[in-house]
């Protein structure tokens, strides 16, 4: 009886997204914005402060593949030119597209017609943690909760690479996981996709430059979707995956 009433109390919690928008808390640090007009001449405070060298000054660009979305740069900025929005839409198709001028950002486009026909309604993914600290893994796990419920889009994490259509990689690819990552990738039947989840998998993130890591997914494993963040929000994953599957409603 107690369980019955609790079930009623808990109610229905799954997000209406993508039919209705999701607005994260205004303090959530998502897509950064830069108003170059406010930058004092010759100022490099943000770039100097950035712990992962994600900001270049001429021209002013933010590399979301390296960005950890920490508040160090915005607190160093003397004029408030640099800020974080709460926009979780960050998925990109190519490494170079992760560079933003703080005004425009090219979100991921849908995959080709053939892949979309094959995977668009049923995408099975294998997760490989290759030095991930368990923050990215935690957020990927959460995509299966009743709130995000990635399963309602036909997307599912499976237990074997043989059952998978692609892999989701987290972590900077520690030396000791490189061969396991390659084996897992090879074991997935073609055609297959690769999703890089988090700054570590894209660029090494906090572990960039460590001799025990590979600065992210090795160049010879082609990545189809880059999801920046440290860790990326579960919504960033849902949004990015639906985009490459061509399943985002118009205007979403």
């Amino acid at each position: 009886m107690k369980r019955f009433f609790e079930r009623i109390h808990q109610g229905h919690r799954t997000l209406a997204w993508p039919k209705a928008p999701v607005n994260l808390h205004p303090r959530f640090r998502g897509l950064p914005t830069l108003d170059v007009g406010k930058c004092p001449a010759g100022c490099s405070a943000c770039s100097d402060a950035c712990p992962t060298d994600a900001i270049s000054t001429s021209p002013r660009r933010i590399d979301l593949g390296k960005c950890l979305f920490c508040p160090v740069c915005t607190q160093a900025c003397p004029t408030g030119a640099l800020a974080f929005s709460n926009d979780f839409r960050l998925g990109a198709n190519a490494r170079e597209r992760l560079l933003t001028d703080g005004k425009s950002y090219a979100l991921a486009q849908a995959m080709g017609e053939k892949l979309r026909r094959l995977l668009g309604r049923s995408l099975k993914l294998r997760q490989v943690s290759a030095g991930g600290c368990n923050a990215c893994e935690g957020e990927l796990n959460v995509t299966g909760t009743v709130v995000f419920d990635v399963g309602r889009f036909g997307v599912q994490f499976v237990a074997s690479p043989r059952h998978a259509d692609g892999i989701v990689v987290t972590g900077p690819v520690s030396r000791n996981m490189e061969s396991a990552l390659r084996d897992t990738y090879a074991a997935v039947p073609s055609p297959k996709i690769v999703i890089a989840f988090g700054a570590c998998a894209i660029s090494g993130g906090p572990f960039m430059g460590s001799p025990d890591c590979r600065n992210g997914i090795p160049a010879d494993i082609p990545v189809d979707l880059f999801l920046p963040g440290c860790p990326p929000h579960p919504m960033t994953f849902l949004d990015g995956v639906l985009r490459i599957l061509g399943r985002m409603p118009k205007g979403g």
Partner: protein
Amino acid sequence: MTSFLLSDGTCDLDQIPCCDPDAFRARVVAACRDGARLVATLVLPIRAQDALLALLARDRASSAEALAMVLPADRRYPSLSAELPQAQAFERELAEMHGLLPVGHPWPKPLRRHADLETPGSSDGHSFFQLGGAGVHEVAVGPVHAGIIEPGHFRFQCYGETVHSLEIQLGYQTRGAEKLLLASPPTRRQIVAESVAGDTSVGHGIAYATAIEKLAGLEVPVQAQATRALALELERMDSHTGDLGALCNDVGYLPGASWYGRLRGDFLNLLVELSGNRFGRGLVTTGGVRLGLPASELAGFATRFENAAADFERIADVIFDAPSVVSRFDGTGALNQTMADELGLVGPVARACGSDRDARRDHPEGIYRRMPVEIALGSTGDVMARAEVRRAEAGHSATLIRSLLADVEIGLAGDPAAPALGRLPPSSLSLAIVEGWRGEIVHVAVTSKTGELTAYKIVDPSFHNWFGLAMAMRGQQISDFPLCNKSFNLSYAGHDL
């Protein structure tokens, strides 16, 4: 030689007395029999001689002490582990990192996997303990697991369904965190520390900041102390909530798994309100915090927190009343207090066995120095006890958060100001102990003669507790492994560094 007491977690490196290996072994063993615990070991030069330094904590006395021995030229020394099981992982780590040879160690095998030691298709350098006899079989799992989880290798020796031995081979996650931290500029160091174990970003972030603040003699403003404690207790609540949900999932009780899976997100979202990040990253900085709760948001924050805390208790009432849950939790994967103490286990795992230790009370820092912390203790040491301790601890965390939010004198609201960090003193050592949700997090920072950070040691609670999981599996059904594993919920990355 008597042991050398640290003064508020710090000491002058050159003042630490050194003894010979036999005396060192005898003294560490005697101190631990007298209630001390090994919390960190380092190899570093003391008065220009390479030495092995052991840091011990005395929980009842709220003190820490250092014992050191000069390393012999051949780096061989009598192993402590046979007499002092809690030293086994420390000695294996010292062997692989510094080439020390603990003579008489019962299992002198690398603690972490080293690709260099392996040839493809064999397990050179990584031979596993094997059971012999007809009908005995071996089960190998990992490094890549079936779920969304970090990599590690588990080797079970079974007879029928019963596990007689489990050996856990980690090291796949090694990212060189300690070396990278030392080589990085200060802002990057904070980030590396927060990435040691992502689910403990706040705990490791505070531990790093505390280690540096102790070295520098920096006083953290009370308001920043309160903000840190708020984040640390939220992290404890979100993790315990997630763990209880995952435990429900592993026994097939899906209402609990669904509800707690959702509720954990509510606590993470409260961390977003506080820090802008679901894991509290970017909040802590040396000297204080980067962010705080604006006064205008305090009331809304408190309301959302109370809703989540109330839901936590309601759901717990249902779960711990469900016969299908209780019958699977009860008696599974039990350890006793003697084992927990001998193995040096920490955190909820140790407290579930009745080992009464919690760094927030025993080695308090910051706001915990003036806030009483209630300790949740179990006695049966099984999955049930680990679940009940988590439930009780989440409740105690809620009480702490309420008092932080209500104490106007502490004042969470407003602009957090971090005092600037001056130069670090030369040849000094500092020890920071923080009770994260998984247990005791230890960070040790050491400076050179010129005041540069020259050595850094991180000990995640998982470092102690993985061996506890292996022991808890003895005599259990292999099908209970997921449940036992989840009831420990240890960090691979935190262990491997």
